[in-house]
Each structure stands twice: as structure tokens, then as C-alpha cells.
């Protein structure tokens, strides 16, 4: 890492670009200069690194440590060994919660990626005016705090809310219900809020990726007689492959670690049908004062996230 950083900001490139007359001098001071660059590189990295170590790595390590302790947050902690983990794995609530979050991946990740690709195919290269408008509209859910999104959707989904009003309007009055309170459908209803929030992000990523594609590829495809669908399949899709991986990773993490949305809409209800692991972590830590158990569950959740994300990266890796 250090080498990468040093080379990317070290001066040789800039010096050579400035012309040949300094080349000799540059070579003469090269070694000391390289050393200074290395130190300076560290200096540039340091503020971000310190924040990252202090606020991300250190708390993470602390969580790992706490997961082996019995601690209520105040009294001296006692060693718990693997007890916290054993307790968690014996609780069926964990498996249900994990299952729910896996279902959420479909709604937070799979569907938004499809929607994002669809929107990209529609907008790419065809829409000239109003592009900013589309971007803003679809990206808006990303800007709003999820707590506000959650409360808004709770009202939209309520028995007299907009969703049911629309269903009534199109003659589907028979299926209206308080969606988030429905035992079978609450999780799906919750998932669609995620779809709404994540689709714009995916679309933005894909649009950015698609703009890098050389227009001559599209020209060549047109000359070969490829229609829009073929162009999308053979030019656009391979072109945004990396962006799809990134979108998949980001949205999957959002699904597995989802908390704020669930907390503000259903709080795990009805009857635990929308419990997710992060919600259980919160309850253990803040309702029950079991910091050790909460940390152990958080560690398990982290391992799960890493495993799923690694799987995504493995399956979408570039064969070449």
C-alpha cells in the first residue's frame, strides 16, 4: 500500500513532463528526493489514516474483544470465553433474522441492479435534455436520511395511505391492507422501500460507467446491424461490468446490515417477521445492556457480510 501511494504521488512523472533540461538534475537528486516523497506520501495519507484507524479499525477490534466478555457497560467486565457466541447460535431468532436479510438482498440488490440497467439502457445516448432532471429524481432517495424515508413510507403503506389509494383507483381495492402490518407481506413491503432507495444509486453508477464506453463500439455494432437490445447486451453490459460488481457489493451490504429503515418502519414486526441481525444487535446492546452478546452478534454479522460480498466478487470476477 505504501509503495502504491508513494509512486502515485511521487514527482518523477511531473519532472519528466516538464522537459528534458532538468532531467540530469533530477537524476542527481533522485534518491534523496524519492525518500522525501515517501515520507511526504505518508504525511498526506496520515490524516485520513488516523481517522480511519481511530474510528473504524480500532472500534472494530474493540468489538471483537468485547465479544469475549460479559459486560453491562458499567461494571468491570468478566471473561466470557465463547459463551456469547454459543448463546447466539443457540437462539433461533438469529437464523430467522439472517434469512430475512438474505431475502432483503433480492429487494435491495438484485431488483435495483435490474432497474438500474433498464434505466441506463433507456437513457444512454438517447436522452440529451433533462438528463440532470432524471439524475436528481432517481438519486434523491440516496440523499434523504433513511429515517425520514422510513417514516414517510410507513404512512404511504398505511391502510389509508397513498399505496392503497392508488390500488383502489385501479380497481384493486380487494387487496389493500396495512402492508407493513401484514404477517406474510411485511418483509416484501419493506424490501420495496429498499428497491426504491437503491435503484437510483445503481442507475447513477451504471450511467457513469456507460459514459466511458467508446462510442465507436456502438457505431460498429450499428453497422453490423445490431438493434438496441443487442447493443445493450454486447456493448453496454460488458462495459459496466465493474460498476455492476460495485453496485452489488454496496447494496448487498446495505441489505445485510440494514437497520435504520427497519427500525423506523416495522421495528422487526409484526411478530418478528422483519427482524434483521442489526436490529438484534441494537436490542442486545441498548435494551438488554448485554454489550458482550451484542458485540458477538455484530462480529457474526460482519463475517456474514464479508462472506457474501466475497462470493459476489468471486462470481463477477473478470475471467481475463
Amino acid at each position: 500500500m505504501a509503495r502504491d501511494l508513494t509512486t502515485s504521488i511521487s514527482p518523477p512523472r511531473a519532472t519528466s513532463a516538464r522537459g528534458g533540461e532538468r532531467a540530469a538534475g533530477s537524476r542527481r537528486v533522485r534518491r534523496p528526493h524519492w525518500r522525501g516523497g515517501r515520507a511526504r506520501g505518508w504525511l498526506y495519507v496520515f490524516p485520513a489514516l488516523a481517522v480511519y484507524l481511530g474510528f473504524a479499525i480500532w472500534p472494530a477490534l474493540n468489538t471483537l474483544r468485547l465479544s469475549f466478555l460479559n459486560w453491562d457497560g458499567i461494571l468491570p467486565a468478566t471473561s466470557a470465553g465463547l459463551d456469547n457466541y454459543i448463546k447466539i447460535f443457540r437462539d433461533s431468532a438469529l437464523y430467522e433474522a439472517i434469512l430475512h436479510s438474505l431475502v432483503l438482498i433480492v429487494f435491495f440488490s438484485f431488483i435495483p441492479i435490474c432497474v438500474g440497467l433498464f434505466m441506463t439502457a433507456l437513457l444512454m445516448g438517447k436522452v440529451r435534455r433533462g438528463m440532470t432532471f432524471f439524475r436528481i429524481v432517481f438519486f434523491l432517495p440516496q440523499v434523504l436520511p433513511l429515517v425520514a424515508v422510513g417514516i414517510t413510507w410507513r404512512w404511504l403503506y398505511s391502510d389509508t395511505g397513498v399505496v392503497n389509494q392508488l390500488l383502489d383507483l385501479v380497481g384493486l381495492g380487494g387487496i389493500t391492507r396495512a402492508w407493513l402490518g401484514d404477517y406474510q407481506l411485511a418483509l416484501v413491503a419493506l424490501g420495496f422501500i429498499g428497491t426504491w432507495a437503491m435503484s437510483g444509486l445503481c442507475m447513477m453508477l451504471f450511467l457513469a460507467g456507460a459514459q466511458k464506453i467508446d462510442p465507436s463500439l456502438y457505431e460498429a455494432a450499428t453497422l453490423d446491424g445490431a438493434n438496441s437490445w443487442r447493443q445493450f447486451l454486447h456493448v453496454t453490459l460488458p462495459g459496466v461490468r465493474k460498476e455492476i460488481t460495485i453496485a452489488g457489493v454496496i447494496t448487498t451490504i446495505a441489505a445485510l446490515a440494514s437497520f435504520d429503515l427497519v427500525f423506523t418502519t416495522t421495528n422487526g414486526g409484526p411478530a418478528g417477521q422483519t427482524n434483521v441481525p442489526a436490529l438484534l444487535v441494537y436490542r442486545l446492546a441498548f435494551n438488554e445492556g448485554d454489550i458482550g452478546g451484542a458485540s458477538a452478534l455484530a462480529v457474526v454479522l460482519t463475517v456474514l457480510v464479508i462472506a457474501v460480498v466475497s462470493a459476489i466478487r468471486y462470481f463477477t470476477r473478470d475471467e481475463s
Partner: protein
Amino acid sequence: MHMTTPGRWQALVALGTAATLTLTACAGTGGTTAPATAKKVDVSTTVPSDPVTLTLAYSNDPPTKTLVDAFTKLHPNVTIKPQMTPFNDYVKSIKLSMSSDSAPDIAQYNPGAMNSLVPAGLILDLGPWSKAYGWDGKFPPASLEVLSSDKAAKRFGTGGLYAAPGALSVVGVYYNKEILSKAGVKDVPKTLGEFEAALAKVKGAGQTPLSLGALQVGGFHLWNALLNVTGDVKAYRSWVYGEPGGTIENPGAQKATKMLMDWADKGYFPESANATADADALANFSKGKSAFLVTGNWAATTLETEMKENVGFFLMPSESTTPLNVASGASVAYAISAKSKYPNVAAAFLDFLSSPEAAKIEFDGGFMPVDTKAELGATGLRGDIAKAFTPVAQNNGIVPFPDYASPGMIDKLTPGVQGLISKKMTADDFLRSLQESWDGHHGS
């Protein structure tokens, strides 16, 4: 080009390292601090005349701020600095701030969030002041019982007193007068049977009988209100207090649970109850979308403003015509930090809470006063509440909410009632899940 000389960047690195170390040191502490040893305090009931400044951390406003103002008016040399934190953040942060070196002298007490402060010795046992001031006669005994616990803070109703109540709340039934008279319900229900008949009549008239916020606490508050009148008070108390052998798997709780399920079956509350927040249930009731709402007197101020003369209040009626005068309630209570330099002044504030002046403030703040004999002269909705509450307080019939029974209980109660409403849980399963949480905390 040379922006930073080596000397300067080394200094910067050193500074940054120092910052990181400080940060990590902060993150690493906690849990290693030894429990504070109880220091000797000379208990006195007189407030010194020297200038004294106390800090008070709280989340309920009103009545806290007005009570503080009234107290400092009586004792001009005392300054109390209020530190208000919204409830959700308060319960998360109060434990840490009470264990810090700059702990507030007085803190609003929340048993769930703060009971680990008792074994840590961070809040004072108020026993000596209670004796010196005679609090047993000044506060309703049941309201002090809930604030007492053993040293491990597992069993309530015994051991030391860790807080004194400043205002009381009580759960009962609000009703919409207009809807009831339209549905042909002439009198306020006197028995549980009459209440059920009224629900049926309202339903028959094509109206929604009850608003219910089962997404949050409204669902189990209704269950709790039913349990208060179908179950045995002693058995319930011993269960919530964590007395050995306490159990909720009893016939009274069975009856309350089955009644709730029956009401769900008959459509006495909307199908959307499980997705309705407490605030939304309150709003629905106040807009005239239902005839009844079961909640606490904390909703009175809102309902009075919205519904004017059209709203009334009664306690969940007993099965027989003789009223049981039992109702669930909590209190806005205050504890004293063991780190306070002026525990005697803080205790004088707690004593002030039981005074007639304080009673007026507590009542105006939408609560029931600690001084149950205070003349309130209230009319309308608040008059109804005062009329219903006084016999309960004098009967020593205020019982704590069921979520006091164990720290994880609320996460069994809310989903459990949702399960009952959506018919995915049987009464036995529900009570079993509550008892499992109890057993996990108290030992079976």
C-alpha cells in the same frame, strides 16, 4: 515546492499520534473502572444558605423544568442547571454520563437504562433521607416500591430506594362522547362486560371501536390494562418485581390474552394495528376515527386540545361492579449521583416533589401529582383522570408496566402481541415467551 520541512511534519505526526492515542484511550476505557465506594454522607434535611450549583439530567419536560424553577425560587441560593436530552438518546447515554467524572448531581431515573448503576454504586441509596423526611407517608407507597431494588438491581420492591417520583402516570380508557352516543351507548361502562358490550355496539354501528398502536407499546398496554382487571394483583406484582417463583403463566394472564385475541377476532380494532405507531393511534382517535383508545394520561393534553369537551376518561373497568382500583402507571422519578457534592440539597429537591406546590405543577404538566390528597380543582378530561386516579393511588393500586420485569421483556411483549393480533401465536406461546425472558434474567 517544499511545503513541509522534516521538523514540521515530524511534529505533525507526533501530534496526530497523540490524538490517535487519546482517542483510542477513550475507546478503551470503561469496564475497567472499579465501582465507586460508597462515601459517608451526613444526612440532613436543611438546605445550606451558601450558593450551591447542581446539574440535573432529564428527558421529560414538562414537568421537570417548572419543578426546578419552583424549587430554586424557594431556595434562591441554589442553582439547578437542567440538561435536557430527548428520551431515546437519554436512555442510551445516561449510563455513561453517570459513570463519568462530571456526572450530573440529579438524573431522571429510568430503571431499564439505569439499573446497572445500582450495583456499580453510582447512584445513592436514598434510605436515610427517606427516613429523615418521612417519605413513606409523603409518596404513594407503590410508587416508591418500584424504585426500590436489591443491590444487584434484579429484584424490585425490596432493598434500597434509588429514586423518588416527581409525577405519576396512569393508563386508562379514553372515549369519544359523540361516537358513543350515536352508537347508543348511554353510560360510561362500569364493568368489563359493559365495556365489551359498548365495543360491540360501536362495531355494530359501523364504527371502529378501538385505536391501537401495536407497532410500539400500545398493543401491550392494552393487554396490560386487561390483565390488571382479570388477574391477581399480587401475582402480577411479584412477577414484575422479580420475586422468586414469579410467573406470568397464570389463569389471569391467560384470560387477558384470550380476551385480546377475541377482540382482534371480532374486529374491535383495525387490522392495521400492527403497523400503527402510538402517535398515529392517538391521532386517529383524536380525529374521531375510533370510539376508544387505551393509553396513559400523558396523552391528555393533546386530546384535550384536539377534542375539547368531546373526550372522557375511565379506568379499565373491573369484572364485577366493585372497582378493583388497579391500573398500570409509571413515574417521572429522579435519582442522586453518588458523585454529587451536595446530596443533601439534591434530596431536598426530591422532597419538594411531594409538596402541594409541586402537586399543582405536576398536574399542570399533564401528570398525576405525587401528593394524592392535593386539591386540584380540575374539570373536563383532566378532572375525569384525577377522579379515576385518586382511588387507585389511595388503594396503593398503581402497578408497574410489564416491561420492567426483565431488560429484554419489551422485545417479547411488542412482537408477542403482534403475533396474537395476526393469529400467529397462541396465548400459551405468548405467555411462555414472556416467562422465558423472565427466567433468563431472574432464574427459573
